[in-house]
């Protein structure tokens, strides 16, 4: 079994083992989960190392060596996995957050520990699945697998006030989004089948992305088709990004979830959408992407500015962070929309950085919320004095979120801005730069009101994170942020290598459109010369 499949199998297997473990031996349950997630972290790091030392070539080689395992032959489902630079970054992110989440949950979760970890690991497996599969069926499969455990995680272990509403909304919203994307995936699937049957009338259909891309490269997808398919895929996946105005599930979902739930949700789950867009929609429908992305760049502004201002009006710390996430995802959208190596790499890097940062933030909020049982900012205050360690970590997390250099977030946001400008989205880039100011406003306000100011007696009994186990997850995440923030080149090189071919495809489509319409492209990018087949005429 290849190491990629292991990433899915290990958490699932651990979840299966946990079913057999008696619910009373909580310690065993916790250790099983931590071990499993630790193994995935090891694999994640191993892949990262492979990407670092061998570059994209090593990843491609590794992917090529993995056979397609036929699953359901008649409809063309196969278990086939692969990595590129982009997914390596995401794998590392997920394994980090999963591991940290397990550690955080290790002491935070006291009720129904066994069920909790089963669901948590299933969620992790689902996310890994999305990041590695190259089969559209399993893409959707893993996507849903990642969404639904979230319902119970929020519902059972979330904060009692709004968990039912939040969990339901999140699950239904994301499922609806996934179904819209499914519509797009099926469009691709059947169009690909038509293409396959051109060569061989007896050909079976295939969900495999390589086949889809081959069809796309061959010009099997007409321009109109690509526009439709891309719109569907993007809308569907954008729900989970979450793109404005499809974001309303997200803040309340963050707010209601338990610490590790929020960590996974904000840290990883929200990245599935943008990842899937890059993984599927871009290479499959480059012309569609070229057509729609300018609009996305506009909507990204709504994300950044609107998200920021709504966050400013919040009184609940988790809502502040929740809306800040949706604001930050605006940068991801902008980076994706820029279709430049700089911008898209920045977007992926931001997905990584934001994932780690927000996991850290929610882990910390969860840590004090478990003791205060209040997220209402005016109730809190002066917590740094009872919990200096958590306070320090929170300051660091806030700084990372506010885009302070030294943290990976800064580098990635800078890349997005540069990329956006490179793509000719000058106005958007300036607004994005301004968004950083807004971010700082509400984050610093929240930080000050929660952790600083006069000590409050009602919180005197609160304890700081003690011992290596409570501190390890936070330290781990901070270190990651700092390391890649101080020296982002390793990460960006890995990501860049994965992003380049995808971007080249869409850029080629852009150039084609520009040639056809005779207009000079607004983008000032240096166009990589990659030959791509012209799109077929409208059928």
């Amino acid at each position, binding site marked *: 079994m290849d190491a990629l499949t292991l990433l899915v199998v290990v958490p699932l297997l651990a979840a299966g083992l946990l079913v057999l473990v008696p619910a009373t031996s909580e310690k065993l349950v916790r250790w099983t989960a931590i071990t499993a997630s630790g193994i995935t972290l090891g694999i994640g790091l191993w892949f990262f190392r492979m990407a670092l030392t061998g570059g994209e070539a090593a990843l491609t080689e590794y992917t090529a060596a993995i056979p397609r395992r036929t*699953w359901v032959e008649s409809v063309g489902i196969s278990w086939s996995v692969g990595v590129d630079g982009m997914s390596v970054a995401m794998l590392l992110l997920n394994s980090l957050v999963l591991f940290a989440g397990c550690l955080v949950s290790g002491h935070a979760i006291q009720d129904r520990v066994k*069920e909790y970890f089963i669901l948590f690991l299933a969620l992790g497996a689902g996310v890994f699945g999305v990041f590695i599969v190259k089969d559209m069926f399993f893409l959707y499969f893993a996507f849903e697998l990642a969404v639904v455990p979230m319902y*119970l995680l929020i*519902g059972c272990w979330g904060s009692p006030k709004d968990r039912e509403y939040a969990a339901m909304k999140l699950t*239904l919203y994301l*499922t609806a989004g996934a179904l819209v994307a499914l*519509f797009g995936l*099926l469009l691709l699937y059947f169009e690909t089948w038509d293409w396959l049957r051109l060569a061989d009338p007896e050909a079976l259909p295939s969900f495999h992305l390589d086949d889809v891309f081959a069809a796309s490269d061959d010009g099997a997808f007409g321009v109109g088709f690509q526009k439709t398919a891309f719109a569907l895929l993007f809308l569907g996946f954008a729900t989970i990004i979450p793109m404005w105005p499809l974001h309303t599930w997200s803040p309340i979902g963050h707010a209601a979830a338990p610490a590790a739930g929020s960590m996974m949700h904000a840290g990883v789950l929200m990245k599935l959408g943008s990842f899937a867009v890059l993984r599927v929609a871009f290479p499959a429908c480059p012309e569609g992407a070229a057509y729609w992305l300018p609009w996305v760049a506009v909507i990204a502004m709504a994300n950044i500015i609107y998200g920021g201002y709504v966050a400013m009006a919040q009184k609940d710390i988790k809502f502040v962070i929740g809306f800040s996430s949706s604001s930050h995802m605006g940068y991801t959208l902008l980076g994706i929309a820029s279709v430049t190596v700089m911008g898209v790499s920045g977007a992926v890097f931001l997905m990584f950085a934001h994932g780690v940062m927000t996991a850290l933030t929610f882990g910390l909020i969860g840590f004090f919320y478990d003791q205060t049982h209040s997220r209402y900012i005016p109730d809190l205050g002066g917590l740094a004095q009872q919990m200096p360690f958590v306070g320090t970590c929170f300051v660091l997390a806030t700084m990372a979120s506010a885009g302070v250099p030294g943290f990976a977030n800064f580098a990635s946001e800078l890349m997005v801005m540069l990329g956006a400008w490179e793509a000719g989205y000058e106005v958007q880039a300036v607004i994005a730069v301004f968004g950083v100011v807004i971010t700082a406003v509400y984050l610093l306000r929240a930080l000050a009101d929660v952790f600083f100011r006069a000590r409050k007696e009602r919180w005197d009994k609160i304890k700081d994170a003690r011992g290596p186990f409570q501190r390890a997850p936070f330290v781990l995440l901070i270190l990651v942020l700092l390391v890649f923030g101080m020296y982002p080149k390793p990460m960006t090189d890995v990501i860049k290598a994965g992003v380049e071919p995808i971007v080249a495809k869409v850029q080629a489509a852009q150039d084609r459109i520009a040639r056809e319409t005779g207009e000079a492209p607004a983008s000032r990018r240096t166009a990589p010369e990659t030959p791509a087949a012209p799109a077929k005429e409208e059928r």
Partner: protein
Amino acid sequence: MNPILLLPEFVAVAAALGVMLYDLWLPKDRKAVLCTVSMVACVAVFAATFVPAVADGGTAFGGSYLVDGMALLLKRLFAITALLVFVMSRDYVEDLPRGRGEYYTLCLLATSGMLICASVNDFMSLFVALEVVTVSFFVLVAFKRDSTKSVEAGLKMLVIGSISAALLLYGIAFIYGATGSVFFADYRALVEAPDFVLSTELLVGILLVFLGLGFKTSAVPMHVWVPDVYEGAPTPITAFLSVGSKLAGFVLMLRILEVFGRSGVVADELTPFLALIAALTLFYGNLGAIPQTNIKRLMGYSSIGQCGYILLGVAAAWETGISATLFYMTAYVFTNLAVFTVIVYVARSTKSHEIDDYSGLARRHPLLGAAMTIGLLSLAGVPPILGFVGKFLAIGAAFARPELQWLVVCGLINVVVSMYYYLCVIKRMWIKDARHPADPAVPRRVKIALVVSMIVLIGGGLAPQLVEKMTAPAAAQLGLSKTPR
């Protein structure tokens, strides 16, 4: 003439007679033996389908009886259904004041009717076999004759059932009038003839037959009995009804689709018709389920909704669509029976079918909670559970036909709607605090059945090819179009 093909039916009927007679000798407190006998009979039926002479397929009774891949698959499913129904019936029947022997006898007779349904190859056998199932269920639904609800449910099912039987009959009459035969073999020859012209009479006949079968499958507009009857009937019977009876209806639908749908002309007429029904059924069932407070009633509406999804695959009417339908039906058997098993045993301790009484079930009884959760999620179509793959394949098959894409949109909308009400139940089980302190006592037999069901559901969800290897050849054997357009 090859009567050995009927071995499963023989076993079932013989077991029914045996149970009926054995009942006379058994003292009142030992009637549970009958359950064991019935379960053994089900296993025997299941085994009988693997006897080479049966498994090889063929026709009997001058072409009235046909064993092909689909028939075998369905027979196995019916055997499993009956087995699981008996598993959950045992304690339930022990609680009944009377008629235990008759209960098992009727169940076995209904099973035999279903087994025949899977194999019928002319309209006469179809009608009579179908009536065997229907009439058995009239009795079984009203079986708790002291309960007003049960009898009322029986009456309602009876009236709607008879009307639909009359419609079916009228449809058959039209088909007979248009073709001069009741044998499917003749129809196949007819529609495959190059000079075949579809007359309105024949079309109306086929449509009426589908509408009449809609009663069994709980498709709009013949679904009206479903919620009331599901609520009023004894719970194991509701389970049997929701799976066995429905699948019998669907296998007949598929059979008729196979017979007439091999002609493109007929298929072109049937597709919009089935799509319309599927859409109405989807919306009716799933929207109607939202405000329900009684779990059996909810499952009634859910059953209507599920019918809509199966119809989605039927409407697609090409090979993969039928394969998807069969897959869906297979998943549905395990899913729904797991859910109903839980319902039976929860009701034994709470004496209630209110959804609110499921509060805290996941904590109170993790096994029941897990089975119910997995079952409901499977119905909702969530990976990695078998139901998800079924739904995916059905939607995908319908999607393949551009004229059905609007129906796919309806299906997708209803995935979300259905997820809502299934999650509402799950919410109570997992999130709410228990209202009943009593822990349901679950015998080992049921535990095993539940665990096996869960393993099948999840294992099948992770490795759907295991199921697909059974459904795809069965669908391929029907000889429908291999490509969607």
